[in-house]
């Protein structure tokens, strides 16, 4: 059950199913990065009107980065058993699939 990861951790000697969870310091650093990305996101509000398309693309990218940082690090998917990831990604994938198709059939995207 152990996931091989190279992160700093204090040893969990017992139980092979215990994932190695990083220290508080690591999480604080991740939170700082997240805060920085949020600040960047907010800044797009003041970008000039001509940059709307760029802003939209940048926002989607930043949203994706934040999304995966939270689920991988804060929710431990990166350190935990892969089965948890599988179950969650199934739902996420189906949601994106069916709702994008639905919105596409309403000519939402183009």
């Amino acid at each position: 059950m152990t996931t091989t990861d190279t992160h700093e951790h204090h040893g969990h000697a017992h139980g092979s199913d215990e994932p190695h969870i990083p220290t508080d310091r690591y999480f604080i650093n991740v939170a700082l990065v997240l805060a920085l990305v949020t600040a960047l996101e907010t800044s797009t509000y003041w970008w000039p009107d001509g940059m709307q398309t760029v802003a939209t693309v940048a926002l989607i990218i930043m949203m994706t980065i934040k999304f995966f940082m939270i689920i991988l690090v804060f929710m431990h998917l990166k350190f935990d058993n892969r089965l948890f990831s599988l179950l969650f990604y199934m739902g996420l994938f189906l949601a994106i699939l069916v709702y994008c198709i639905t919105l596409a059939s309403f000519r939402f995207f183009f």
Partner: protein
Amino acid sequence: MADTAVHAGHESGHHVTTTGLSNNKLAMWLFLGSECLLFGGLISTYMLYRGRTGDGPGPNQLFDIPLTSISSFVLLMSSLTMVLAVNSAKRKDDANTKLWLVATALLGSLFVGAQVYEFTAFYQEGIGFTTSLFSSSFFTLTGFHGVHVSIGVLMLLALAAMITRNRVAGDKAEAVELVGLYWHFVDVVWVVIFTLVYLIPA
């Protein structure tokens, strides 16, 4: 106790399940996977209807981006305090676990408070639940999210109280982790809503 069925979710139970994983945690992840489709539906409804403002104001005139940015930041930081609570619980440090749980609940309440303020402000600007398709779908989406946050706050406080009174059945660290998973998920949904609803211009 000789059998797997009854051990589920108990500390020693990890080792008797087939996969070696906790039943409770599997159940929580399944539930969160299911929630993706719930919020996906609400977000899609909003995306479809965000331009249908009728005679009322639209999202671009209405949203107060600086305020929402601050409340988004608050919710994001509550994820940090939550993860600190989970780590404290893993160290069996009850005092810090409770501290961070309550801190998370406070940040969550602050977020809900900001949302209530925002809704009130919108209402005073003439945007009610039934004003337009845009307003109905906006209030439904953010309302559902707000209810999820509120339930999360309730669970955080209940868990802190139960730790105080030593009433947590089973694995305490796991209970904190489960509430944590729920809390982070609610945060992650807001990450999506903040971008798709507030920041990307309609």
